[in-house]
């Protein structure tokens, strides 16, 4: 049912914005059914990596292949139809449309579900993400936890083979994170591959079997989660950012400094 070859291949992909390099000769392979976590300091190029895979960002050089096919020049709509689903870090629902309509558009367009099948897919996805009761609510009136779920529901409705999750757990309470992780694990039962950026490392390690650490647009570590988190390169990357100007020191100074400034 699934091909045995790699699902996603990034082949020496480079992307620069002026002086900033968000992907530097980046190569990466994801196989069908993989669950890959992505960590790295801010500005490491994590979200840009998703942009390059989903088609929002066109790389300056290098190749993006999906199921062995070169999709580098394809736009996001075509890549979605080829099986790439993506969620945004800050949810971007179609605000004036209902929750149902949001998911239905994804099911009919990205998922290619015609007629009644689109409605069935939508109903199934909404049930799986616990949004059935909110189906008729305008998406603009949802709170953050439900927006995050809708983001996931919309991506799932496109029937992806590869799901890119950008900090779906950020800003949620522990029980909400646990629920969301449950939904993602349920979706993985169908052989879906997941690449997941997350700062909440606990949420990641419960699901992924492989962890990648990005820094400066390059992969600095790639392997089993425990090994990656323990590796000296990763420790240096995180300690390195931690010591930039001394996060602890900076945290201490503004309180006193701010107080002085206010008094002066």
């Amino acid at each position, binding site marked *: 049912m699934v091909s045995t070859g790699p699902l996603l291949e990034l082949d020496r992909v480079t992307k620069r914005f002026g002086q900033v390099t968000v992907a530097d000769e980046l190569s990466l392979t994801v196989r069908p059914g993989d669950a890959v976590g992505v960590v790295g300091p801010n500005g490491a190029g994590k979200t840009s990596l998703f942009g390059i895979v*989903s*088609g*929002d960002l066109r790389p300056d050089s290098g190749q993006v292949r999906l199921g062995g096919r070169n999709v580098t020049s394809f*736009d*996001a*709509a*075509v890549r*979605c*139809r080829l099986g790439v689903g*993506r969620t*945004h870090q800050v949810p*971007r629902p*179609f*605000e*004036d*449309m209902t929750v149902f*309509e*949001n998911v*239905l*558009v*994804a099911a*009919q*367009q*990205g*998922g*290619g579900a015609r007629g009644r099948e689109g409605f069935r897919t939508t109903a199934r996805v909404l049930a799986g993400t616990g949004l059935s009761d909110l189906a008729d609510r305008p998406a603009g009136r949802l709170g953050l936890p439900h927006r995050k779920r809708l983001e996931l529901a*919309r*991506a799932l*409705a*496109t029937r992806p083979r590869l799901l890119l999750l950008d900090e779906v757990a950020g800003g949620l309470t522990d029980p909400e994170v646990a629920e969301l992780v449950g939904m993602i694990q349920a979706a993985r039962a169908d052989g879906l591959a997941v690449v997941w950026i997350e700062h909440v490392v606990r949420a990641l390690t419960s699901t992924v079997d492989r962890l990648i650490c990005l820094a400066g647009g390059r992969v600095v570590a790639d392997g089993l989660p425990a090994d990656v988190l323990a590796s000296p390169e990763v420790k240096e990357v995180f300690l390195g950012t931690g010591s930039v100007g001394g996060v602890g020191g900076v945290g201490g100074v503004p309180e006193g400094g701010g107080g002085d400034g206010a008094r002066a």
Partner: protein
Amino acid sequence: MNWVGAVVQGVLVGGWYALAACGLSLTFGIMRLVNIAHGDLAVCGAYLTLVLSSALGLPVGYTLPLVLPIAFAIGVALHLLLFGRALRGGPLAPVLVTFGLSVMIENLLVAGLSADPRSLDAGRLALAGVRVTAFGSVITLSWLRIAGFLTALAVLGGLHLLLARTSFGRLVRATSDDLDTARLVGVRVRPVFATVAGIAVATAALAGVFLGMTATFDPYAGGLSLIFAFEAVVIGGLGSLWGTLLGGVTIGLVQQLAAQWDVQYTVLAVHLLFFAVLAVRPQGFFPASEPEAA
């Protein structure tokens, strides 16, 4: 004429303004495209009808099944060749490109069909009217005006249903809300926008046909109709179809009422109203959605 008659005429004429403006409202609301050539495309519709009805020997009404699909196809082609590229070129590019298109259309029409004023023969409908007694005064209403108003209502109602109730409408709403996210869930934006442009040009052509039947037109008539259409859209609220109808009717009313006072002030009165609306309520009466603050 009398005041009651002026109000009724104003509403009927306003229907035509709404018809002329709804395509503008559509392209702006959905694609963020300000089409300066919209009025010229309406005039093109009138000329196309003129040419077809004289070439085929058909009455004006019978050419519509040909004129509207041709206009739709022209809109699609314009999007694929011009508008789509212009929209990728930043906020100013569409204005400049469609301004250039406007100048080109006007000059091509002059070169090909001369600058003489023309009109479309509406047949028996042109002179037929109905006398109504209301509030103690007798009003004569032209069937042509009534037909124009009903057509405008039907077009706006149809567009509303298309957007609110169909899968295509959902695509359009999703795309106009967030272009990138729409792509991300698999929406192919180009065909959606091309269809919207096609619909907009078809409605403009229809407005042009009614313009040709109720008045005269020449290659430069597009400019003034564009200004009125633009004002109708802004008064009603950018991107809102019912707002556009209200804007059109408001303009028609002001125009007819000003004519009761002195005919030479009709155009000025409309512009003053537009100015007043911009000063007091720049978002229009029914803005399509909240101003983008977030």
